[in-house]
């Protein structure tokens, strides 16, 4: 912990060695975050690169209140959101009523790897992917998501429902029928 503080202080002075050390400490975790928000590895690399540039230039703003990893994570998420706003906001997304979610019971998920799930989540339309990540994994509320993405709460909810349906379908298609991973209960 003390070592991290020292690295942060040196980064504030623009020390390139400290920046390298910080990158080595957090790049794998942050790249994991970026992959979830990106449609492929190329986009994830762009987000990671831009995110780290912001971390290095804005590290003076970190006041040692809360975890540094959480602060970096927020920067990565915000960078991904900004990229989405710039490039993907005009993509038409079908609006739908809130989907009455179907319940699933897990029998076994041992055969599904994180890589498989990453591939599935990357195949989601950009807005669904954003909303699902923010709600299901980061834990933001629909109100917060609506403010972050400049959409209505209802849209956020419907996007989440739609994302779940697509993800469920993908999981079933890839692992459900053959491998008996999940069982649908009416």
């Amino acid at each position, binding site marked *: 912990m003390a070592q991290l503080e020292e690295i942060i202080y040196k980064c504030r002075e623009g020390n390139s060695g400290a920046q390298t050390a910080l990158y080595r400490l957090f790049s*794998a975790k942050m790249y994991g975050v970026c992959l979830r928000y990106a449609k492929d590895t190329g986009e994830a690399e762009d987000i990671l690169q831009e995110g780290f540039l912001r971390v290095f230039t804005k590290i003076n703003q970190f006041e040692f209140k809360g975890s540094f990893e959480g602060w970096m994570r927020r920067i990565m998420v915000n960078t991904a959101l900004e990229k989405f706003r710039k490039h993907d906001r005009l993509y038409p997304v079908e609006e739908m009523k809130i989907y009455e979610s179907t319940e699933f019971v897990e029998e076994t998920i041992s055969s599904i790897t994180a890589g498989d*799930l990453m591939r599935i989540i990357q195949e989601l339309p950009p807005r669904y992917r954003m909303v699902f990540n923010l709600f299901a994994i980061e834990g933001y509320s629909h109100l917060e998501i609506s403010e972050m993405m400049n959409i209505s709460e209802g849209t956020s909810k419907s996007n989440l429902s739609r994302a779940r349906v697509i993800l469920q379908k993908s999981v079933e298609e890839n692992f459900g029928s053959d491998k008996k991973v999940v069982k649908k209960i009416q």
Partner: protein
Amino acid sequence: MTTENHFIDQLFKENLGNFEQNPPVGLLEQINQKMVYRSKIRRMNQLKAIIGIAAAMVLIFMAGWFTMDQNQIVNNEIPQQIKQVNTPKQINPEKIPANQLAVNQQKITKISPVKQYRPNKAQSIPENTVSKQPDATGKASAAVEPAVIESSSSVQTNESLAKKAMADEAAAAAKKEKKSTPLYFADAGIQPNSRKESGKGGWGLKAEISPMIATQMQSGAASNAKAGSSISGGMIASYRMNDKITVSSGIRLTQMKQGSHSDYTMAKTSGITYLQPVQKDANLSGDISLYLPAVSSIVYSNGMQTTANNIFTSDVSQEFKYLEIPIQATYKLLDKQISVGVTGGLSTNFLVGNFASVTENGIKLSQGRTDNMRDVLYSGSAGIELGYDLGKNLVLTVEPRVKQYINSISSNDMVNFKPMQFGLFTGITYSFR
């Protein structure tokens, strides 16, 4: 933040919430490159802002000065005289004796544009010609005309006729002068260029250029560094405070170049390949980073390849560009067709270009930048300005000038180098007078 207990949500959160994967190897190098690039852009933007503000201030100041110059003449001098011009309009000649009317006429002619007018003899002019003064004579004639008409109708003496003739000629002279003079100047009998012609005050704009010769660009003596030829040029605004002293400021772009043939080692840190001179105190201006990611070694035409920590000899050329903002003063020793003056001043120099390349027989093998260069340098300069008047507004100047940098161009403690440059600045000055 809220969470919803949903199977799909749980499945993805458990598997991807703390998912880690190492990014591609070259990504850190790309980040470092972008950091360098962005800091350069940021520096350029700051410079642009400074230059913009400086230019705006100069323009505002110039505009203000010109406006003030004209307002001062109009506000301070004209109203008093116009007041006098208007006075005769209030005279009712029927209630005033003829001798007083004559006195009034004298007052009017005193403030007319041709106050130096002295008639040689009294002229006899028919009455009706007086009333046909053209409108183009302006306010002066308008003011003069009624008084003259009224007095001529009431007092038919030789003396008053002579006065009328004076008024006539005054009006005719005013009309003639009006063709080249603004109305208010003609009315008030003011020479509009009287101030500028005195030789005091006045702005000038100068474009200048010079070849530059620098002292050897090294901090020590045992090096094969050789200064290259470079150039400097810019735009300078000047203000002549009095007959002797002119102050000036503006923008100049100055180059510094050198080539060297020295021993180096190569090192790689944080993805950047560095070319490090073996004798830092006797060579170059510090380490050179070859920031192209592809560069891991330099391959020469004979097949020799540099490797980390091996000493090798190489040709390196370096080039720096500075944007100079000088503040200088010139003291005129002679101010005739040919003028001579001494100049001196201080400058702030902003680093705007930093290029370094490894060369072999003049061909670039790899390129990068010199490390640890200071972004801002201060310098002093002195010279002798020789001028030749090409016309009313143009002056050709030639100025041998020496420029000495006050602080070391490198922030590296091992490199203490304060170059001196000589230049022969040739320029054309346009004076706004």
